[in-house]
């Protein structure tokens, strides 16, 4: 089932890219379409951050993940590179699990 998801995701992502090469530019260049396309990733990523940080199954949880993401916010404010941000979050999460 995961394989089906992987392959369909890959096919869909490719078709979306190809679509840009295939359609006339005027179709997608309306300002409203462009603005929505810019904001959609913001909403999706924020939703993924929120759920990944505070939700387990169908309940809220304040645990090592929230501490790890909090540390990631600090790292981002200090302009740390992406890999450092991810490692800081993982490190804080792992240390809290040990205790």
């Amino acid at each position, binding site marked *: 089932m995961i394989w089906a998801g992987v*392959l369909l995701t890959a096919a869909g992502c*490719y078709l*979306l890219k190809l679509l*840009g090469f295939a359609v006339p530019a005027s179709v*997608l260049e309306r300002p409203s379409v462009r603005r929505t396309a810019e904001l959609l990733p913001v909403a999706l990523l924020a939703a993924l951050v*929120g759920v990944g940080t505070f939700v387990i199954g169908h309940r809220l949880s304040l645990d090592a993940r929230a501490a790890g993401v909090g540390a990631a916010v600090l790292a981002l404010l200090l302009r740390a590179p992406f890999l450092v941000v991810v490692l800081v979050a*993982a490190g804080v999460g*792992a240390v809290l699990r040990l205790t």
Partner: protein
Amino acid sequence: MRLRPGSFTPLSSGGLTGEERRSILRDAAGIGIAVGAYGISFGAVSIAAGLTVAQACALSALAFTGASQFSFVGVVGAGGAPLAGMATALLLGSRNTLYGLRMSALLRVTGGRRLLAAHVTIDETTAMAVVRPTPAGSRLAFWATAVSVFSLWNLATLFGALGAGALGDPRALGLDAAVPAAFLGLLWARLRTGGEARFVALAGAAVAIGTSLLLPAGVPILLAALVAVRLRARR
């Protein structure tokens, strides 16, 4: 500029000085290394989400668009259906369609080259191509970045996945905290674009967290995107 025999490769249709070309290739190598860092994270969080090494590598080679791949494994890792993961990935991947429009006009490719160009039309290749002042520079930047990012992204995914698999329990390694942190890293630059983006982000997160208490995993992410973009339209 002095012309030398053999100075025209299929990638650069001429008009570039040696210095310009070196600068483009240097930038392409640099962005490839930076993307490699994302790739290691992606390989590792894929394993944490329950994917196999082969599935992680298939996503990187075939889907080849970072944020979509992260969202797929994020939803599946949270217990969501793979199809819900796919829907989230495709919504995130829709921006590549807009990139394709830009690149199609810039690259002027046809046939098999066009099919190949489409596959490597992502944030990094588009960003590198559009900042070049000449079409020849844009083309070289696009293809050089494509080669650099594609090879390092896939290599890094493999290493990340093998490494996480060898290290053991993903929760003990803090990888469940690394997944939302990775999404935050991807989101961060977009939050700086203005108050509207921050409003949409807060609304999206709030809707997703709230509806997660009732709806199956994966669905709240999609709902949040639609609601947040609607709210923005009414504002």
